């Protein structure tokens, strides 16, 4: 795990100095994170990196988990999907199961934080233990179009919190409490984003039989209809008519996700209609993803919906020109024509890719701008700073605070 000093060559000494100043202001306060799992999933991934760094900065940070049986997690999975806007049949029994387990957790999870930082809906009911400490609810879900029945149920708890945190402006809701915007981040020192040697990149390309004699267009994402892999192939075929290039569609799919397997098969089938298309089913291998991104000429993220779309930040951090759909958190990462190109359709994506392949200087400038935008706004150090500011904001109601 990287130490805080290792970020200095990337973001500069003064950014790390600021983090230390903020940490000093939090001396004496205990921060307690609570979520439902310590491994797997984005929340655990970010906490596994954040908690040690906060401790290293001197912020007394703890991390506790709630417990729940299979039934409870089946219900919370349904809640999760419903809050994401998927059609789900939710019964009174589901709410009862949620409350039964929540009651046990309310009694059993020891609350030790001056600031209790609750992640996602699973532990939301713990707020019933609120005393004179501060409570924050961190939403990692795209709430732009939630199932109202589930949202109203969850919102009843959230109104008792001091603040709520969302990843993008469109996810905010009408709530009587303060709502803070904190986008997620990438870790520039992780295997997915760290610098790679040419040998490391070449060995991955060799493994997957990818030659570098033609420009490479890549989309990295799991095989899911919402990532529109078929649309990516169509856009590629339109580009291929004019420019000799190749396409990489790479990502994973859960083996227990029948839809993912079906989408992969459809993509393979559609790929038969063109040449130079590499469809790669990757197991979770961060270095391979990193290498494929670094070997690419243009990176696409043609999602139909997107929670935040951190693959865009990953690509921009590698100074790659990106063509991405204008959905979810993507417009926060790309300002059209300045740090990438946004599109709304297959034709639009194809046109943008052609522009970038035909104008390498322009593409290079977009990539460089993108990298600087990510450096200033989407690295883990910014995320740490925002979390510490969030903790401090709980003790101040005014808009301008002198510390």
């Amino acid at each position, binding site marked *: 795990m990287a130490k805080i000093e290792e970020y200095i060559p990337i973001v*500069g*000494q*003064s*950014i790390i*100095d*600021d983090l230390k*100043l*903020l940490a000093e*202001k939090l001396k004496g306060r205990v921060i307690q994170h609570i979520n439902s799992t310590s491994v797997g999933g984005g929340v655990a991934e970010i906490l596994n990196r954040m908690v040690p760094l906060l401790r290293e900065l001197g912020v007394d940070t703890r991390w506790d988990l709630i417990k729940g049986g299979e039934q409870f997690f089946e219900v919370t999975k349904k809640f999760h999907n419903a809050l994401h806007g998927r059609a789900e049949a939710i019964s009174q029994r589901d709410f009862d199961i949620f409350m039964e387990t929540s009651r046990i957790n309310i009694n059993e999870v020891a609350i030790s934080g001056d600031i209790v930082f609750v992640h996602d809906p699973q532990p939301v009911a713990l707020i019933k233990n609120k005393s004179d400490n501060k409570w924050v609810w961190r939403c990692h879900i795209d709430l*732009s179009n939630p199932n109202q029945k589930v949202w109203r149920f969850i919102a009843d708890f959230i109104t008792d919190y001091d603040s709520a945190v*969302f990843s993008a*402006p*469109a996810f*905010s*809701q*009408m*709530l009587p409490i*303060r*709502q*803070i*915007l*904190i986008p997620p981040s990438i870790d520039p020192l992780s295997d997915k984003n760290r610098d790679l040697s040419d040998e490391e990149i070449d060995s991955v390309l060799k493994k997957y039989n990818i030659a570098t004699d033609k420009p490479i267009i890549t989309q990295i994402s799991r095989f899911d209809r919402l990532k529109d892999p078929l649309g990516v192939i169509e856009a590629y075929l339109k580009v291929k008519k004019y420019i000799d290039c190749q396409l990489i569609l790479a990502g994973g799919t859960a083996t227990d996700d029948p839809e993912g397997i079906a989408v992969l098969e459809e993509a393979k089938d559609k790929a038969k209609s063109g040449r130079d298309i590499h469809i790669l089913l990757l197991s979770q291998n961060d270095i391979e993803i990193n290498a494929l991104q670094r070997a690419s000429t243009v990176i696409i993220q043609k999602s139909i919906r997107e929670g935040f779309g951190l693959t865009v930040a990953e690509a921009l951090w590698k100074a790659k020109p990106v063509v991405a759909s*204008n*959905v979810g958190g993507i*417009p926060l990462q790309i*300002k*059209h024509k*300045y*740090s990438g190109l946004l599109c709304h359709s297959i034709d639009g994506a194809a046109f943008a890719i052609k522009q970038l392949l035909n104008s390498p200087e322009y593409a290079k400038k977009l990539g460089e*701008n993108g990298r*600087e*935008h990510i450096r*200033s*706004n989407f690295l883990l150090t910014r995320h740490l*700073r*925002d979390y510490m*500011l*969030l903790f*401090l*904001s709980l003790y101040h109601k005014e*808009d*301008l*605070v*002198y*510390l």
Partner: protein
Amino acid sequence: MQEFPKAKEPFRFYTRLHLSELTGLRAANLSQLLDLIRKVPGSSIYHHTHRFLQQHQYLSPEPPNDFAYWVAGVLGEDELGERLASIDTMQYSTIRSLRDKIAETIEEYLKNNPLAKLKFARQDEEFHFIKSLSFVLPTNYVAYDLPGFAEILKKITVDSIYFHIFEARLRLEKQTNDFSYWIETSLGDKELADRISGLDPYTRTLEDLRKTIVRVIEKKVSG
């Protein structure tokens, strides 16, 4: 080694860090945008005119504010976008006067182009009003003379430069900044102070501004 005069008062570098608060207010067309620009707190106007610049500093010199970017990029109103982008922010030393100028510019445009009211943004491209929660805190960097000042200036964060240049104008409600004020009052160098306050920070990137100020000071130091 050349001796440089010590300042009467040392210069303590501060920084201003921001957290973005979501207001839940959003606009889909120009009428809604205008209405909300008049109503939202000053910290929201600050966010969309100043914070935007800080977050997207590589875009500089254009577009200098979020309103101009949205109006041109999403609604396709290029002319209004240009008018909003070319508002001379330097002239306005209060957020209130800047807000009035932005509102007047949109109002005037709508009067002459009533059809522009009919343009709506798609749901996922609406303008979301955000406000800045700002935290001002002293850093550990202190300068006692001009060369020391230049050395620190090379390494402090852009947030700190931002605070002392942009923020100072709004805080002091004067056409000056903290650097110039200190150089004039503590080092007695009015000429250097004026050269720095004469730089238009709104049409440069913060890194470029940093380099320019360092260059001006080093030139002075080397005589």
